[in-house]
């Protein structure tokens, strides 16, 4: 009885993502250095820091868009933990379109602008073998609804959408296959404040309803307050502080975090 309990606890306590000593240099310049953290299933991790602090570099290395110079990124795959840095590219790309999702700051980088909204949402389904047009379309309509895009816009191209709609379409396109881990780089950046608020609200609902695990890079402390369970503060490529979001924001330990929180620094 006791043994069984222990085993169950061990199972659920496995991190979804375990990062160790991740380092990326651009020549002599440091992109990010010696970053380590664990992300557990259902957790949302926020990464904040001033411009040039290495947030996007870190996210790209985590998502396999860029090879790090050192370190490991262990992801809990269906076949057990695997280092995504050393796995075959074919496997990593397959994971990127099934288990993972990546939401770009600029929707143009994450959407196919020449393809209809329905085609954009359906692409990941077709990439993993969906071959029934009617089913793909039904799923696309369902997902457009979840991101508050009217079903009758399904055949319109993203060009005909506002910035906020484009970003919501990008989110639908990423979440349609039910990924286990979502990377987002400034998902609300470049949008009007009122549009940002609506998007944040939507994201919060999706994260909660789907129990998503996510890593969100942002300049905006309001975003992490609303979405992130845990927070990582970066400066000059290094993690200077990490912990529960409320703790870090309400009782910052590192001098840089204190500046950040007191808004003395314009991040």
């Amino acid at each position: 009885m006791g043994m069984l309990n222990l085993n169950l606890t061990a199972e659920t306590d496995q991190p979804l993502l375990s990062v160790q000593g991740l380092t990326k240099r651009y020549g002599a310049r440091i992109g990010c250095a010696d970053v380590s953290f664990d992300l557990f299933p259902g957790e949302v991790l926020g990464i904040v820091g001033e411009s040039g602090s290495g947030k996007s570099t870190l996210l790209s290395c985590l998502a396999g868009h860029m090879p790090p110079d050192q370190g490991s990124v262990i992801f809990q795959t269906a076949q057990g933990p695997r280092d995504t840095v050393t796995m075959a590219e074919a496997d990593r790309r397959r994971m990127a379109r099934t288990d993972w999702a990546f939401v770009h700051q600029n929707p143009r980088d994450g959407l196919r602008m020449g393809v209809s909204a329905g085609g954009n949402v359906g692409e990941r389904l077709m990439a993993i073998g969906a071959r029934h047009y009617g089913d793909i379309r039904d799923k696309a309509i369902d997902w457009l609804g979840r991101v508050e895009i009217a079903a009758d816009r399904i055949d319109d191209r993203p060009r005909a959408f506002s910035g906020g709609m484009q970003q919501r379409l990008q989110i639908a396109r990423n979440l349609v296959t039910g990924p286990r881990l979502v990377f987002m780089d400034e998902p609300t950046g470049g949008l009007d404040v009122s549009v940002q608020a609506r998007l944040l609200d939507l994201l919060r609902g999706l994260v909660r309803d789907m129990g998503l695990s996510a890593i969100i890079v942002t300049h905006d402390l309001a975003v992490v307050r609303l979405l992130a369970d845990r927070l990582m503060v970066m400066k000059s490529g290094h993690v200077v502080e990490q912990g529960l979001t409320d703790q870090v924001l309400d009782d910052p330990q590192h001098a840089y975090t204190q500046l950040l929180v007191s808004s003395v620094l314009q991040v």
Partner: protein
Amino acid sequence: MTDQAYNFAYLDEQTKRMIRRAILKGIAVPGYQVPFASREMPMPYGWGTGGVQVTAACLTPEDTLKVIDQGADDTTNAVSIRKFFQRTAGVAVTEATAEASIIQTRHRIPEATLTEGQILVYQVPIPEPLRFLEPRETETRKMHELEEYGLMHVKLYEDIARHGTIATAYAYPVKVEGRYVMDPSPIPKFDNPKLSNSAAIQLFGAGREQRIYALPPYTHVVSLDFDDHPFVPSKAPHDCDLCAASDSYLDEVITDDQGGRMFVCSDTDFCRTRREAGHLGPLGVPMQETV
């Protein structure tokens, strides 16, 4: 008469060897686009320089060559390529599909079933089927390597979303032996079933794009589709007005300025052979009278 200013079939032996290596590689990996160093040919790119180079590399003095453009032997393009090889290689030429050992074609597969020992050479303008949605060559190469072909179905999805049906009528994408997705060149989709399990060697040459790919004999080729929108190799719902064929690909021909029109086989040799055998459509005339 061979023009003595040129090597046999125009290209020098070293170039032909280089092209043959690309062809052999293509045959070894069906549907895979093999890069090759395309040479300047004494004709513009739009005239099928890729096909011409592949034909030049395959020709031997014993070959009999047939050249067709949209199924016809007598169009400008076909005539000038045929003349080019008569002049530079001195090979025998024919219009009869069954008599040809090498057939160079633009936009059609002959109606007559090809046989072992025959080579069909396609002129290809754009070899990359993924380019329509992914212009980056580095990315499309990676997609082929990793068999990431979801994008091909996005193209078909867009077709159905816009037209209610898969409207792609030419260059309809296929999957070769369950592996590579391939552009069969702008043949009508009516011809797609003939790509599969053919006894002939099928070679595809893209001159401007410097790619060669191939289907060895008896290769399994499947046209992409959806479960609820299956591939249909459609044609005009008519019989040939000249030879009454009901199973050949037809061209619509305007016959006068009062809107008169007729449907005739696009494969001129096929149509003539049928009429010689006595098959006559409503507008057909027995062959003896037209000669």
